[in-house]
């Protein structure tokens, strides 16, 4: 009987995995033994990191949106359906339309979403660049501000040792902001204050979630005149007074609050009953090596939904997707998994508007910070505008 593989989610993780699976299982697809279906709640595919550039007027946004169908190999069935319920005993996912999708193997790749409402006042007074809507709003404010203070805050999930989306993004955007305001000629009249919470994964009282980078950041920020302080865990915002209040009891006034807000898994996952994360955050209990959801032998997950200590970013997904695809292919063919994820994350951080820093790390080794370069920035921008689409299609 034909084996059914169902992928839920049309973001980077779902799209890459669907294409990689189709490539690896082509002989079975040719013999009509395997069927791959991807469902997504949108007919469009969004390249999320592009929003960061929109916030500084360096991109419009439309460049980072494509038809989902156009990114999938023709062997993959694609349906626009919003998944609402999962039944892991009878192996099916139910959509809002009532349609049932049965599976032999399931890949949960529904990512994560901003949850600013979890901090009182943040939705009204704060801004973030993690969505295109939020980035467009920020771009207007960054273009208008002439003097005052821009405060940067970062919130981590309450579940221990899990990062927020794209760990390096607050550092990247702070440095991009410095360059942008300098370009506008208003930097001298605007104070940038970068704050970081007391607890950031394994780091306490630092400026980044990994020790080596945390140690070099003060000198980098000092050289750019960016003020920095640790021990500021945003817990409340007073929208009227424009004051950010920390759990440690400190208050900082701001004109613009560029926040990394709390994140959660999507509603579909949070309501699935599979997660054991704190505060209904919804992260899926994930086997760090096989990338199976713990306790569910035919369900895999990757990307922003997992409860692993690695970055929730495309540079992580790119290394996880082949593990998931290889393991499913191996299970179908031999009945056992064949690959193991080592926690590898590869990315190029945009350290300012025209400087890129290559970085890589895994479960055992932290990022070793290196000087950024113009060439690094070109590679990053080239990836954003072109190579990403090839990677999503499973071509790179």
């Amino acid at each position, binding site marked *: 009987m034909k084996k059914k593989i169902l992928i839920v989610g049309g973001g980077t993780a779902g799209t890459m995995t669907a294409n990689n699976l189709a490539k690896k299982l082509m002989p079975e697809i040719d013999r009509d033994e395997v069927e791959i279906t991807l469902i997504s709640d949108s007919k469009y595919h969004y390249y999320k990191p592009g929003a960061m550039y929109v916030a500084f007027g360096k991109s419009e946004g439309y460049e980072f949106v494509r038809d989902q169908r156009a990114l999938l190999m023709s062997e993959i069935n694609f349906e626009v359906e919003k998944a609402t319920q999962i039944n892991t005993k009878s192996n099916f996912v139910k959509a809002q339309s009532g349609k049932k999708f049965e599976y032999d193997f399931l890949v949960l790749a529904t990512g994560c979403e901003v949850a600013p409402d979890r901090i009182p006042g943040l939705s009204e007074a704060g801004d973030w660049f993690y969505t295109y809507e939020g980035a467009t709003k920020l771009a207007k404010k960054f273009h208008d501000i002439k003097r005052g203070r821009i405060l940067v805050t970062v919130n981590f999930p309450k579940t221990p040792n899990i990062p927020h989306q794209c760990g390096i993004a607050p550092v990247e955007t702070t440095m991009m902001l410095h360059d942008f305001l300098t370009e506008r000629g208003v930097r001298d009249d605007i104070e940038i204050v970068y704050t970081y919470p007391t607890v950031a994964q394994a780091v306490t009282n630092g400026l980044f979630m990994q020790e080596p980078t945390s140690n070099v950041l003060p000198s980098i920020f000092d050289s750019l005149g960016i003020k920095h302080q640790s021990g500021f865990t945003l817990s409340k915002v007073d929208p009227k007074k424009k004051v950010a209040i920390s759990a440690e009891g400190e208050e900082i006034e701001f004109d613009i609050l560029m926040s990394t807000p709390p994140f959660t898994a999507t509603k579909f996952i949070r309501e699935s009953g599979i997660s054991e994360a704190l505060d209904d955050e919804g992260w899926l209990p994930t086997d760090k090596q096989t990338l199976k959801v713990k306790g569910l032998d035919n369900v895999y997950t990757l990307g922003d939904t997992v409860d692993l200590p690695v970055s929730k970013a495309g540079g992580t997904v790119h290394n996880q997707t082949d593990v998931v695809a290889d393991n499913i292919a191996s299970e179908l063919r031999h009945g056992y998994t064949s690959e193991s994820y080592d926690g590898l994350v590869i990315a190029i951080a945009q350290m300012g508007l025209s400087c890129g820093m290559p970085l890589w790390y895994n479960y055992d080794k932290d990022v070793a910070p290196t000087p950024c370069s113009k060439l690094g920035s070109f590679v990053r*921008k080239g990836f954003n505008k072109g190579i990403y689409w090839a990677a999503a299609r499973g071509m790179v």
Partner: protein
Amino acid sequence: MSEKVEVLKTKEMQELEAKMTMLIQTGRIDNLIDLMALVSDNIEMTTSPMVEKMIGTVDNLATAGFITENAVRYAKRESTKNEVPSLFGILKLMGDKDTRKGLSFMLNLTKGIGKQL
């Protein structure tokens, strides 16, 4: 008055020095330094808009390759599965929506080429 200074070198450094000496003696070093300068100049002379335009062209080629690759694979699979169609069979194939979509794309593609000739 000059003093004799003794510098201790590792075996690897000595090997590297020998190789560099050969490059200098044969005059090849000049070309290599010119090449490094050329690479460096090219990085300096490249701008963000140039990178975006270049990568846009690469993306267009990759997209065309992706569409073609998918279509060829599909056509090959269908041709293997089915017998060579009769004339009536070909007409029946024309009744399929995807066939007509592809055919009209090809005709528009021809028109697009014609416009440039």
